[in-house]
């Protein structure tokens, strides 16, 4: 397994200090410096740089995709704690299996495939608790009034709760199609099924969502 200086150092203390703005560690400087150097690299070259153990290359992969992976996991499990743990697991598995990335799909799609597997495995072991409304940070939409923001957050929470009740394949299909804009073919690749099955799952997912949301639907 390729190792680099940046990845070989325990980093909790360093992260806390950096978050607090107290200091920057040399290892992070290396990572950041190389991150800037890698900024122009395409995905394949970035993966190759990670495999070659070049400091900062995998940092940049994490940085580019962490938000999308976290959102994917959150939509599956519905709470921050589990989504955070699962996202970390996704990148850990991605690092372990980086050699198996052939570049036939985009890096994002490859990470989604890992993410869907990780999330479905977790769901088969336990049903994660859906985060209560008052623990959720509403998404800021600028000039929106506080009451509108609350209303939107509440509606969003109801939809997420309804999605969480969908059968697993329907849920995965709906999440990947609606929120990550994967094509039917890409979803079929991620889930190991056919395009026809993906469309059928999407159809049933939307139908079930309508039933679960009941009166809220127009």
């Amino acid at each position: 397994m390729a190792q680099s200086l940046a990845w070989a150092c325990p980093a909790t203390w360093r992260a806390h200090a950096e978050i607090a703005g107290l200091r920057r560690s040399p290892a992070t400087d290396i990572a950041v410096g190389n991150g800037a150097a890698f900024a122009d690299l395409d995905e394949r070259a970035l993966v190759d740089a990670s495999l070659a153990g070049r400091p900062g290359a995998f940092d940049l992969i994490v940085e580019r995709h962490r938000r999308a992976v976290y959102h994917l996991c959150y939509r599956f499990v519905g709470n921050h704690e589990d989504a955070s743990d699962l996202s970390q697991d996704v990148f850990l598995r991605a690092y372990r299996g980086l050699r198996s990335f052939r570049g036939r799909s985009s890096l994002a799609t490859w990470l989604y495939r890992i993410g869907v597997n990780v999330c479905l495995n977790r769901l088969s072991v336990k049903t994660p608790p859906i985060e209560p409304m008052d623990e959720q940070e509403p998404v800021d939409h600028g000039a929106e009034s506080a009451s509108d923001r609350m209303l939107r957050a509440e509606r969003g929470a109801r939809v997420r709760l309804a999605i969480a009740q969908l059968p697993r394949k329907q849920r995965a299909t709906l999440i990947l199609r609606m929120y990550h804009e994967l094509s039917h073919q890409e979803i079929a690749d991620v889930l190991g099924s056919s395009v026809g099955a993906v469309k059928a799952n999407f159809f049933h997912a939307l139908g079930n969502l309508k039933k679960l949301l009941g009166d809220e639907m127009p």
Partner: protein
Amino acid sequence: MRHLTPQELIDLAEGERLEPSVPHLASCDHCRREITHLRAAMARAAKAEVPEPSPLFWEHFSSRVREAIALEGALGRRLSLERWSRFAAPLSIGALAVVVIAAALTARINYRPPTDTLLSSAASSATGGALVDPAILPDDPSLDLVADLSSEIDWDVAGEVGLTTREGAVDKAVMQLTDGERVELQRLLEQELRRSGD
């Protein structure tokens, strides 16, 4: 009347196919309603955003990933060291046993028994080479060592370090026996079969 399939309805709801290109829709309220419902469900789902975590979370997250990978690397190195040390003892015993066996075989090949100790039994009457009576072999401390070591080696461990026979090895050994040795082997096998048949 055949209604549109889920795949066709999804294509129409998503705009991959245009409605005028499907004549069935002009005469089917059911399918038109299905498309309207699908679009409404998509619009409703699209508004469900993920609550944004604190900005500090992302930096902390990258550090956690980096730390987990470093920890796994360290753990992997330790495990491989432990695995190596687990096999080190049996391997050294095996290597020692191989050396001793090789020494014993060399000694046996070089051994020239006195003519009066050759057996005059079936073996010597056969056309092949002479057999040596084990009872009259001189005491060989290396053979005792081999016996001691082999009695303590577990069969699985012996297999792991390659001390067990390979497929076909026994047949090959029998082919290399002299005629006299084969006659003696036959006698021993028959004796063993008679005993097991009792």
